[in-house]
């Protein structure tokens, strides 16, 4: 089989998953398995005066209760993995269970282990904890003020980090004819995967090996971090991520919970399972965003933009999560100019501790926030100077000829042609006509809005030397092994692992093309630290551009060796061997050929190999890309706002994304759709609400609105292809583009609809009540 790359093959994994044959964490049953539950703090901030577990321990099925004090000196604190340099980063230790003070609702207080799942929950209710409540710091700007309660006593003003990038000379700012200022709040949201988190530990006292199954987007990072936390050799700790129902960044983090389960399994010598409850998930799993972004955009009356100055105040929660410190700094601050050639930029970020659940990367991680502020402020700028928002964007795009383009903050965008998807999207919506229709509808009193977002995103992490320079505690290369069995069937080992993306399909397509064999002959192995030598995980839309590239390179190496064997058998020079559609042929000698399967057998039998060649047909690659990748595109949304109720209806959603070479248009489109759902969710429906005491008020799916399919019009999705020069596939990331692009696109559309009222901003999510109030005010009611 050849040329399957670029075709919309159906997902190979779906029949298995749709027929109930997946193997998720909760499907794992081990002999003698115990069940764990974690007692969590109901207070945002309190001293723990006393914990009395006597009654719980009296339940016959309860095996053990551990408190923070019991574990002191036995499990280390869970470190953050992104120690951003030059920002006076202050990391407060996060112990697996709170020792004498709880710092957020959901902070772990005690670990209970029992023979079954019912008993363990009953036991939780019998543990009596005496708290002395303390005042809580909840919102970031308030938490920084003098006299605010301190989350960690030794961290002044709750400031975890103060980061700066870029400087703008006063003359540049003073010479601007126009300045547009706005403060945006990109609210806290929950990644909300359909499967909550889970961990299962099994210890073998004979070998001293600990196996941990857990919902991890990056099993090798879990292994690396937890081996330190638990004091066990990496060679004796095996981490496996089973099938997973989504992650969206919420399963990047190495959490206290996984360390606890590993510890308990080893301590008790029996397997221990922990499955997070949905209600528990809201406070115990890392949230996303929560950034207050103050923006100033400078430029001339003719629309030439000259400078952008941004201040981001980010709520990091009570502790630094695995990626937390990097999101509002590196990921955000270096991308604030977006797709525009704005010559001057500066960003200042404060990361603030509060008495809330920690925040971490969430689909897009910093880039949706960066895109939000630039795409929103550019619309306001267009409004200010009376220019069409499309024209202002075009005027300021980094031009096609400038690629690789260096932005004002020093990032080098690999490839781009921003005009191309914009033009295509404008044609699909018929922009001119749309604007005319909007005018007519306005005259009839209807509120129609058109919103545009022309985004660019940094993803595909990345060169490891850059990761080191920005303080990431890991590399960001990927590895793959392609192993050809004697029959010619192939096992492919991949470091990046799927949790819904469809790697088995897309990576299979890459290998099928390279080796000229059917998809059915290819099996993918992921997510097991014992099978895969090393990996840095699935996040930042890096699987295809980095992991997929590693797969392609390993497959190329297999072909290289196979050609030598074929040449030997066919008595020709290796350079004269042509390999096409699974057949090795001697150039210019028809009929002189070997199939891939014949060579696979020859390589494995090793009866007749070229002099000095090692047996077998297997190759490994370790790929470290020279740069990140920068997908881009245009999303256009048409909305109608109901004047009477404030409800927003999306009439059309058009997106043209350029993610480089598309491996599978069907799965790529699926990624775009899912991303859009989560982005629009942020704009219109989702939002974590904390009371001033730090109680989470939106802690159920009754109070926290997730997007549903029926809320959307058909998404009109298409692609343009501008290959990336930084990996052999020419591919860029696609997983986060939809989220990054859609939040400002929808917001711009609603603001455009409400333009007759002079409204410039409403805090997300745009609930009908908020919109209705603005309309009432605008109507003078």
């Amino acid at each position, binding site marked *: 089989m050849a040329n399957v790359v670029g075709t919309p093959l159906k997902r190979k994994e779906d029949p298995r998953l749709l027929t109930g044959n997946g193997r998720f964490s909760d499907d794992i049953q081990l002999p003698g398995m115990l069940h764990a539950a974690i007692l969590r703090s*109901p*207070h945002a901030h309190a001293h723990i005066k006393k914990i009395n577990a006597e009654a719980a321990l009296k339940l016959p099925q309860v095996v053990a209760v551990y408190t923070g004090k019991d574990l002191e000196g036995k499990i280390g604190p869970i470190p953050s993995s992104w120690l951003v340099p030059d920002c006076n980063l202050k990391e407060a230790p996060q112990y697996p269970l709170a020792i004498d003070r709880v710092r957020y*609702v959901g902070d772990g207080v005690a670990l209970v282990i029992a023979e079954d799942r019912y008993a363990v929950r009953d036991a*939780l*209710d019998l543990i009596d904890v005496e*708290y002395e409540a303390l005042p809580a710091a909840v919102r970031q700007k308030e938490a920084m003020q003098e006299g605010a309660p301190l989350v960690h006593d030794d961290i002044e003003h709750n400031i975890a980090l103060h980061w700066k990038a870029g400087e703008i000379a006063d003359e540049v700012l003073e010479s601007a004819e126009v300045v547009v200022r706005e403060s945006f709040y990109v609210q806290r949201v929950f990644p909300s995967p359909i499967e909550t988190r889970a961990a299962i530990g099994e210890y073998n006292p004979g070998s001293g090996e600990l196996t941990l199954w857990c919902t991890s987007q990056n099993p090798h990072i879990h292994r690396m971090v937890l081996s330190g936390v638990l004091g066990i050799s990496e060679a004796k700790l095996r981490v496996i991520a089973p099938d997973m129902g989504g992650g969206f960044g919420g399963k990047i983090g190495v959490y206290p919970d996984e360390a606890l389960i590993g510890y308990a399994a080893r301590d008790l010598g029996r397997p221990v399972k922990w499955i997070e409850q949905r*209600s528990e998930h*809201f*406070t115990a799993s890392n949230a996303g965003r929560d950034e207050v972004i103050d923006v100033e955009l400078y430029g001339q009356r003719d629309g030439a933009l000259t400078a952008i100055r941004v201040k981001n105040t980010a709520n990091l929660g009570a502790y630094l999560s695995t990626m937390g410190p990097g999101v509002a700094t590196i990921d955000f601050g270096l991308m604030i100019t977006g797709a525009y050639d704005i010559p001057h930029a500066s960003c200042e970020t404060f990361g603030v501790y509060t008495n809330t659940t920690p925040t971490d990367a969430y689909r897009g991680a910093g880039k949706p926030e960066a895109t939000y502020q630039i795409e929103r402020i550019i619309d306001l700028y267009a409004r200010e100077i009376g220019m069409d928002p499309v024209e202002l964007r075009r005027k300021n795009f980094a031009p096609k000829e400038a690629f690789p383009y260096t932005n004002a903050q020093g990032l080098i965008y690999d490839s781009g042609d921003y005009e191309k998807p914009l033009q295509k999207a404008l044609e699909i919506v018929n922009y001119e006509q749309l604007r005319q229709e909007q005018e007519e509808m306005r005259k009839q009193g209807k509120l129609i809005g058109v919103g545009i977002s022309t985004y660019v995103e940094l993803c595909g992490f990345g060169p490891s030397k850059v990761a080191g320079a920005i303080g990431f505690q890991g590399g960001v290369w990927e590895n793959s092994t392609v192993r050809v069995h004697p029959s010619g069937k192939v096992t492919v080992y991949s470091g990046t692992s799927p949790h819904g993306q469809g790697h088995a399909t897309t990576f299979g397509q890459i290998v099928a093309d390279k080796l000229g064999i059917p998809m059915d002959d290819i099996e993918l192995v992921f997510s097991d630290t014992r099978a895969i030598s090393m990996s840095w995980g699935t996040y930042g839309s890096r699987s295809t551009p980095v992991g997929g590239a590693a797969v392609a390179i390993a497959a190329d190496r297999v072909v290289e060796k196979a050609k030598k064997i074929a040449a030997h058998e066919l008595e020709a020079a290796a350079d004269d061997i042509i390999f096409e559609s699974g057949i090795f042929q001697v150039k210019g000698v028809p009929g002189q050929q070997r199939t891939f399967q014949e060579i696979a057998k020859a390589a494995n039998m090793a009866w007749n190999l070229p002099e000095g060649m090692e047996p077998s047909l297997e190759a490994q690659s370790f790929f470290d890309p020279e740069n990140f990748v920068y997908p881009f595109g245009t999303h256009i949304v048409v909305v109608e706002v109901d004047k009477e109720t404030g409800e927003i209806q999306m009439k059309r959603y058009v997106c043209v994304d350029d993610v480089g070479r598309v491996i599978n248009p069907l799965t790529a489109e699926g990624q775009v759709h899912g991303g859009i759902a989560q982005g629009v969710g942020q704009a219109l429906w989702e939002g974590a609400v904390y*009371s001033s*005491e730090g*109680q*989470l*008020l*939106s*802690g*159920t799916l*009754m*109070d926290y609105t997730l997007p549903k399919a029926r809320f959307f019009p058909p998404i009109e999705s298409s692609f343009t292809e501008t290959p990336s020069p930084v990996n052999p596939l020419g591919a860029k990331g696609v997983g986060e583009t939809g989220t990054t692009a859609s939040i400002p696109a929808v917001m711009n559309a609603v603001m455009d609809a409400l333009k007759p009222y002079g409204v410039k901003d409403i805090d997300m999510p745009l609930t009908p009540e908020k919109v209705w109030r603005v309309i009432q005010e605008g109507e003078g009611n």
Partner: protein
Amino acid sequence: MNIEYSYSFKGVSRELLWKTLQNKEVLQRALPGCQSFEEAGENVFNAELGLNIGPIKGRFTGVVRQVDMQEPEAYRLLLEGKGKPGEIDADAKMSLEESDEGTLLTCCAEVKVTGILASMGQRVMGGVAKVILGQFFKDIQKETKEIAKL
């Protein structure tokens, strides 16, 4: 959150209502789901209540204090309770006013909750509190007849 609730005790004098509300046995009978009610000091009681708040069921143990007693016009009821669904901290100002019908009792409470009570219960708490208070005052109304006989 703030909860305000008024109840008109028809044909009950302010003095009788005060006396009823201060009777320990009456309170034990009328408090919803009251499983125990022990005097722990002057105007201090240890109580155990079983409450249903919307989707949340739970047993709460805590301390009830009566302070700022201004017989027969007003007093403050302080409640600190703790149960599996979370903790409750309430400060209720009770005022008794004479009216044409009898006595109008107004309860103005500031309630703080934690845990599931906050994340799940908050939305329904106002409504549920009114139902519970309504039931409580209805029972008190009945009890006034017994107290009047004393």
